[in-house]
């Protein structure tokens, strides 16, 4: 009897490829090192984030102070010139960044807060709950997104926060559907059965096993939705439903610039490019995440 025990033990000790899994930080750094696009995007986004704190330091000119120097071309004091009310464009751009980021994240948070629990519930419980939820999701997805956002904003009252909540509501059905599919897949895994046989309560099951294993595609989608939220905010502000003056917002800046396009077309470029680059960064990050988390590429790290 002891011989079988020893054989097993010695085999276990001599097993090959026994590498300890590197810490999360290490893995993130390795990912960034391998994917230039992701690294650049992340750096750019972190820069934007830092503007929340350092906007004043980088762009000392006030974004709302009007002057007589209207639609001036770029010069030493006004690096990007001034807008139609004599306000410094560069400063408005820089001070508008935190607003923009806040808007994107708000929309995505609202969408997740609604979509995640609904999707998990539908996926886990199945039955009529799932069918009903599915139909509601179908119904909501038949609304052209911006139109629904506008309608909800109209009801809630215009303004940045309300319009972003509206966008979040528009996001939620798609997110719910996504996590629902993943929940169903994970729910049927054997280790969930095992956990159930240990007497795990359903809530505990969802929290410990289903959520961590189902969340990856959700996270990728959320990152991509940041770009969509950004574009949505730009559109809504452009239309006057989002950020209200005099708060600077890239979308709003575009709206004003359009009015003076014939006189000073360069006004359009700065905010437009800012929106474009930020959306690109979010997208690149999301796509990199998707590729990095792809299970078909699973090798032992």
């Amino acid at each position: 009897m002891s011989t079988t025990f020893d054989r097993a033990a010695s085999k276990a000790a001599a097993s090959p490829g026994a590498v300890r899994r590197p810490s999360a930080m290490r893995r993130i750094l390795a990912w960034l090192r391998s994917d230039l696009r992701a690294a650049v995007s992340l750096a750019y986004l972190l820069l934007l984030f830092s503007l929340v704190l350092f906007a004043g330091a980088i762009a000392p000119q006030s974004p709302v102070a009007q002057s007589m120097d209207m639609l001036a071309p770029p010069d030493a004091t006004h690096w990007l010139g001034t807008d139609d009310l004599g306000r410094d464009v560069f400063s408005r751009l820089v001070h508008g960044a935190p607003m923009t980021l806040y808007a994107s994240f708000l929309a995505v948070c609202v969408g997740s807060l609604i979509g995640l629990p609904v999707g998990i519930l539908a996926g886990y419980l199945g039955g009529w709950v799932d069918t009903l939820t599915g139909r509601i999701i179908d119904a909501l997805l038949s609304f052209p997104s911006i139109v629904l956002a506008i309608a909800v904003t109209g009801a809630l009252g215009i303004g940045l926060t309300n319009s972003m909540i509206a966008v979040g509501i528009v996001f939620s059905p798609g997110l719910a559907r996504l996590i629902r599919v993943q929940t169903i897949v994970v729910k049927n895994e054997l280790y969930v059965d095992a956990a159930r046989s240990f007497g795990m309560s359903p809530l505990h099951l969802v929290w410990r096993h289903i959520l961590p294993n189902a969340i990856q595609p959700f996270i990728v989608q959320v990152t991509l939705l940041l770009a969509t939220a950004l574009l949505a905010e730009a559109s809504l502000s452009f239309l006057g439903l989002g950020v209200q003056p005099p708060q600077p917002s890239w979308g709003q800046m575009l709206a004003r610039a359009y009015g003076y396009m014939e006189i000073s077309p360069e006004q359009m470029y700065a905010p437009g490019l800012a929106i474009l680059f930020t959306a690109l960064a979010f997208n690149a990050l999301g796509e990199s995440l998707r590729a990095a988390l792809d299970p078909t590429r699973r090798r032992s790290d």
Partner: protein
Amino acid sequence: MSKRQALLLGSRLLQVIPVIILATLAIFGLLQLVPGDPAAVIAGEYATAERIDTIRHMLGLDRPLLEQYAVWLGHAAQGDLSTSLITGEPVLDEVLRRLPNTLLITVLALLLAILGGVPLGILAATHVDRPLDRAVTSIASLGVAVPNFWLGMILVGFFALRMGWFPTTGAAPLTQDPLRALSHAALPALALATGGIAEITRQLRSALIEVLSSQYVRTLHAKGLSRTRILWQHGLKNVSLTLLTVVGLVFNRALGATVAIEAVFAIPGTGSLVVASATNKDFPVVQGVVFVLVLIVIGLNLLIDLLYSLLDPRVNRR
């Protein structure tokens, strides 16, 4: 139409009804989202209590909720979408008057998206991971990230103002003066199409790559079938279903995105109507426009569903 196809059509129609009902519930529910008293909000800041009461009664807001919904739904089914609070005109008329302008740009954009996206997608898929593919993929990534109303602005600035090739604003009725209508719609449609081109390119590319690298196709290749024949006969046939689904998605998105485009090009369409009415709290108009648009989207999706089931024999079998 065979009996089975008729049954399928019937069941699909039946499935659509609960979705429509739920959508109408959502539209009706919009009014409930208004914080505080909707009547007061509509009446405005300086309204008297009397005025608020009048509005409340006029809109039937003092009746029980379910009754309000039933009444609204009943009217809507008959084509009565109530009247605008601002102009007093029937909502449906206004919507129908503006709808052709919006639909023109949307459909045009869709066509451009297909005409642009399909060749690009094929190009990318047949040159996978080579410079051409990378270029196309990068352009597609760009297309998804660019704010299309900004693109519209640039197009106006260059092609309309500078070159004078296209009119800058407005729209013209298609039936009376097609050429003028199209010239008005060209730039907006182009701006609208960028997102669609990008999406179709991407989806087509990945679907085609999957088909072209499948075992089935590789066997055909080994048997000596030329690459172009494989592409046309097998690749595209399999991919046409994906294309159909993406088209539905792109249309849905485009219909929404016209809102900003219409603002840029000053087109009197449903998009600008929705914005104006939302800003002015003209809720019947908001609800009316959304209702019509939703019906259009559901209708199109139903059509796509049916085409899908007709083209894909697997879907039919239960």
